[in-house]
């Protein structure tokens, strides 16, 4: 399967997915760590992809959504942004509701 199709399946097949360096338990980048922590604090399950373990996704994710950096956080199939936007949405209370709505809408 083409890598962009693979990414598309992950993005559309999960209510919430974070592409990060490392894992939520063992993050390998401070920005990925903060974004994953914000998602965890919302207490809604989410998927993650460790881009350091998947060179093909690491190389190609930036062109999937025309976003140059990691982490990338997708909710309900849409890129919401990177670390800064995720933290802002968490701080202003929107993130949990977005994640809950996405989880409810999932098949």
């Amino acid at each position: 399967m083409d890598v962009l199709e693979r990414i598309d399946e992950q993005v559309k097949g999960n209510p919430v997915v974070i592409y990060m360096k490392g894992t939520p338990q063992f993050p390998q980048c401070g920005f990925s760590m903060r974004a994953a922590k914000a998602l965890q604090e919302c207490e809604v399950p989410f998927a993650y992809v460790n881009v350091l373990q998947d060179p093909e996704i690491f190389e190609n994710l930036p062109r999937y959504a025309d976003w140059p950096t990691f982490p990338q956080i997708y909710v309900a199939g849409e890129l919401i942004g990177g670390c800064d936007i995720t933290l802002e949405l968490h701080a202003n209370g929107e993130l949990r509701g977005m994640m809950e709505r996405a989880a409810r809408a999932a098949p």
Partner: protein
Amino acid sequence: MNRKQRIEIKLRDALSPAHLDVVDESYMHAVPADSESHFKVLAVSDAFIGLPLIDRHRRLNQLLDAELQNGLHALTLHTWTPDEWHAKGGTTPTSPPCLGGSQLG
């Protein structure tokens, strides 16, 4: 010209920011301190009015695309309208009024 200066010029030209702060944070990361790889940008601009955060960040990513393609590895972005910035407790220093000195020879 270093990367910080190039970023400042590009953003000033494009956004006419009321406040702009560009910080080289490379020293905080696992790279040589002079890497110019990790930057934080605070930009306060009327250009962000009516734009969702993701569109503001896309705009900055596009403006700084040449830097991102050339060793700029991490870009932390804080992008606010003047009203949002004030509501967050930030202050935008006001410039002093003209006292006419430039007219006095």
